């Protein structure tokens, strides 16, 4: 399969981006100033991310759609308000996660943002579950860009009047150059910010306009360090088809009514995990020294018992130290627990840590 390019590819190139293949797309991993500067610019001012590789799915339907979708997505779709967004999952029968997603109630039905690497498979799963009763559109004519950082609201308001009054995890239709665009106040960095769904033919003009106003273009490299500091999961690494949302410490993302009533794929596993059969938990880990524990690093107890695995790890530029996420046996999951990380054959001292590593700054 040929690698695909987003509508902003040439613009990234003109900015001097380094590209990497990611989920079938040529994506900018960093620009000339580098990952650490991009990371810090997002935390202190505002950064622009091209996330057009992600899937933008619209499912059209009403009450009947709610009933069907609730069988595979464990959020309370009866209670969700128009233009409200929720973080949720596409569940498999075993209680694992096919994908994590953001679902938004829109006028026509539901809009869902899916991971790039999962989107085609997700579409099949959802189609199958809905038994062709509803219209599904996975848009390839829409781009998606994220504007993230404490100055994002002030900057975006200059171009899109009224956007600063959106509440966190809420969206709305706006207009740019006479065309409809949809903006939600959300993101993947631990900062205030917006995700803007915009027609491909307008996105370069829109991005340039923001960059001219001082917004820094940010690549996938800093996107990863930012989300890790914010304690957010990366699908395919921190969560996958064999991790349940309870094991992943994401119980909060399953609505209360759904936790009690069930009625969705994998509920048996969720229920038993919540009722005492949980054996492992996603945790944060901070090495005591400078060693970086990356995906696959084994975690040991102080007594050298193997107790888990790192699923993501890097150096966190804002916390100014190495950070990692992973899974450990439940009894070792308490923050402050001393553990050992085996990196290149040597064991290094580390501590189980609270997540997020970096304190959030959302506008609610």
């Amino acid at each position, binding site marked *: 399969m040929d690698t695909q390019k987003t509508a902003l590819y040439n613009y990234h190139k003109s900015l001097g981006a380094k590209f990497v293949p990611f989920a079938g797309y040529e994506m900018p991993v*960093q620009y000339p100033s580098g990952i*650490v500067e991009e990371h810090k610019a997002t935390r202190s001012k505002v950064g622009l991310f091209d996330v057009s590789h992600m899937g933008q799915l619209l499912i059209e339907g009403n009450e009947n759609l709610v009933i069907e979708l609730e069988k595979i997505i464990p959020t309370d779709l009866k209670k969700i308000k128009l233009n409200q967004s929720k973080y949720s999952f596409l569940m498999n029968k075993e209680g694992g996660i096919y994908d994590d997603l953001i679902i938004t109630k829109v006028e026509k039905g539901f809009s869902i943002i899916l991971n790039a690497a999962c989107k085609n498979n997700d579409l099949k799963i959802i189609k199958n579950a809905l038994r062709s009763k509803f219209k599904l559109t996975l848009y390839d004519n829409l781009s998606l860009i994220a504007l993230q950082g404490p100055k994002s609201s002030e900057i975006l308001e200059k171009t899109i009047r009224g956007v600063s009054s959106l509440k966190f995890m809420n969206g709305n239709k706006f207009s740019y150059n006479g065309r409809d665009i949809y903006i939600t106040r959300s993101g993947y960095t631990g900062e205030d910010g917006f995700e803007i769904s915009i027609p491909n033919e307008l996105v370069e003009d829109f991005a340039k306009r923001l960059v001219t106003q001082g917004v820094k273009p940010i690549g996938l490299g800093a996107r*990863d360090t930012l989300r890790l500091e914010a304690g957010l999961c990366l699908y395919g690494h921190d969560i996958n088809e064999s991790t349940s949302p309870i094991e992943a410490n994401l119980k909060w993302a399953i609505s209360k009514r759904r936790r009690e009533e069930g009625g969705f794929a994998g509920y048996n596993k969720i229920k038993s995990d919540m009722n005492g059969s949980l054996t492992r938990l996603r945790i944060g880990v901070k090495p005591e020294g400078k060693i*970086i524990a990356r995906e696959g690093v084994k975690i040991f107890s102080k007594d050298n018992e193997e107790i888990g695995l790192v699923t993501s790890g*890097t150096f966190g*530029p804002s916390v100014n130290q*190495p950070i990692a996420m992973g899974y450990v046996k439940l009894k070792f999951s308490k923050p402050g627990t001393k553990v050992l990380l085996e990196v290149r054959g040597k064991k290094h001292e580390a501590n189980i840590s609270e997540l997020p590593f970096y304190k959030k700054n959302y506008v609610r």
Partner: protein
Amino acid sequence: MSEKKYSKKHEWVSIEGDIATVGITNHAANLLGDIVFVELPDKGKNVEKEGQAGVVESTKAASDVYTPVTGEITETNKSIVDDPAAVNKDPEGTSWFFKIKIKNKSELNELMNKTDYEKFAKENPN
């Protein structure tokens, strides 16, 4: 006067008598991006030409550092372990990695001069 040579694995060697100072090239440091971790070999360790003799990590990934010559590690630069970002600032100067007592001087003949290395780096950007 010291003589400077370059390896195909993007290390530089500065030679004074039978002691070589080794580091990573400007090109390598640029390619790695922000360096956030450095691991150096133990003093007194014997290393073989092109054998692993350290690790550098950027925010993105870990890479091995190789020794361009065979010999015994006589000194390591602890300051870059404490401040890995210094490697990006002055990779071919103050941010050297280790010093090595050269066992076989003829190995130096297999290394490149500056002009040849720059050409090599241009042709092999990764």
